[in-house]
């Protein structure tokens, strides 16, 4: 059942992504100033939203774990965080390739980029912390606490382009600006890509959760063997 769901999510996500790519390269109009490279936005922005949605879901799951003590929430939180971390990396990598052309530099220390970098470090720390603790219950509680502490930075990243004047472009999506900053066709494509990313991310999360379950099983069998 679960396996089927993974396949369905992955296939639907992949097909949608392929269709989107076709649209991105053949249907959508060019952007006047930037040339072809502006198309990175269709990876960059959906990846960021996928990652941040994931971090938020992980925060909720962590809180649920602390409330209920049910380790399935902990596994889900860990899996979602890990997958979100990968998408955050995609976001930073594509962004910096875009910056190399548009700004002439790979990186700049403006609040958006800095806080995003910090965000990567925090969640990398989260993944490291999980590796460093063997006992699943303790691991769950401590990493849940870290997830809650760390989410403060996600809010800073999200809000930074409103709080500071950054080199990073201001918000473009109409839910944040009220519209007018972006061609509706392009905005539409960002959302279609976001949907594809979320589907693929969900498929990976399910695979990852299954691994977490096996890991717990191994741990408990090992305890049984040593008891």
């Amino acid at each position, binding site marked *: 059942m679960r396996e089927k769901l993974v396949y369905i999510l992955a296939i639907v996500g992949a097909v949608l992504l392929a269709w989107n790519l076709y649209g991105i390269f053949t249907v959508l109009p060019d952007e006047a100033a930037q040339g072809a490279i502006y198309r990175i936005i269709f990876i960059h922005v959906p990846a960021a939203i996928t990652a941040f949605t994931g971090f938020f879901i992980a925060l909720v799951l962590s809180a649920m774990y602390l409330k209920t003590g049910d380790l399935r929430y902990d596994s889900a939180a860990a899996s979602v965080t890990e997958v979100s971390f990968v998408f955050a990396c995609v976001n930073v990598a594509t962004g910096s390739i875009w910056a190399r052309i548009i700004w002439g530099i790979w990186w700049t220390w403006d609040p958006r980029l800095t806080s995003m970098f*910090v965000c990567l470090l925090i969640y990398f*720390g989260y993944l*490291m912390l999980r590796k*460093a603790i063997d006992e699943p219950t303790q691991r769950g509680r401590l990493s849940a*606490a870290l997830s809650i*502490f760390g989410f*403060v930075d996600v809010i800073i990243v999200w809000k930074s382009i409103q709080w500071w004047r950054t080199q990073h472009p201001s918000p473009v999506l109409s839910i944040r600006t009220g519209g007018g900053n972006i061609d509706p066709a392009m905005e539409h494509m960002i959302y279609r890509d976001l949907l594809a990313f979320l589907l693929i991310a969900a498929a990976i999360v399910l695979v990852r959760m299954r691994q977490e379950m096996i890991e717990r099983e191994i741990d408990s069998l090992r305890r049984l063997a040593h008891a």
Partner: protein
Amino acid sequence: MNPLLQALWVARKDLAIEFRTKESLNAAGAFAVVILLLFSFVFDPASPEVATIGGGLLWLCFAFGGALIFNRGFARELPNECLDALLASPVSASSLLAGKAITSFVLLLIVEAVSLFVFGFFYDVRWWLHPLKLFAVCALATWGIAILGAAFGAMTVNLKLRELMLPVLIYPLLLPLLMAAIELTNNLLMNQVTSDSLLWGRVLLVFDIVYTSLAVALAETILVN
């Protein structure tokens, strides 16, 4: 017993031990001074630009010195399993955490005072132009460092890689606070207090409030597992 009073008693006990052994004070103080010394090779200590980067230099010293201090904070409870004895006693987990934060706060302020004198001496920077404001900045930023240090010191106390994990986890989280402290300190060293200062001051305050409440709320989760 009042939880705040309990926290103060925990801090008092820790400070008594610390002043007797001087383990972390010596290490953190010496480390901070060494960093100040090393930075004199990075740029020309006689140039006037020192005041413009002095804040960054100082807060790096304090942050690195701080790691040595709160690495010891909970590790001090490990021999003889004192942590268990404390947790089983009527001291609440949040009081214990707050007590550790108060200890680090006091110790770190001492290290900061020493570093400031050394800094003024080596780099010829007149840091005493706004003593009260500078103290306020130091106090607010140091409290933020101390409370996060206590929370993450508690998290990592039982890990094999304690000394490695703590800095990896804590510096990214501290960054907004350090940025604010550096900006403010630079402004004070250059004797130009701008409207930006107020904004950064607010960042410090919000940081302290948010992380202190999170740390107090999550203390049980972090310590009892």
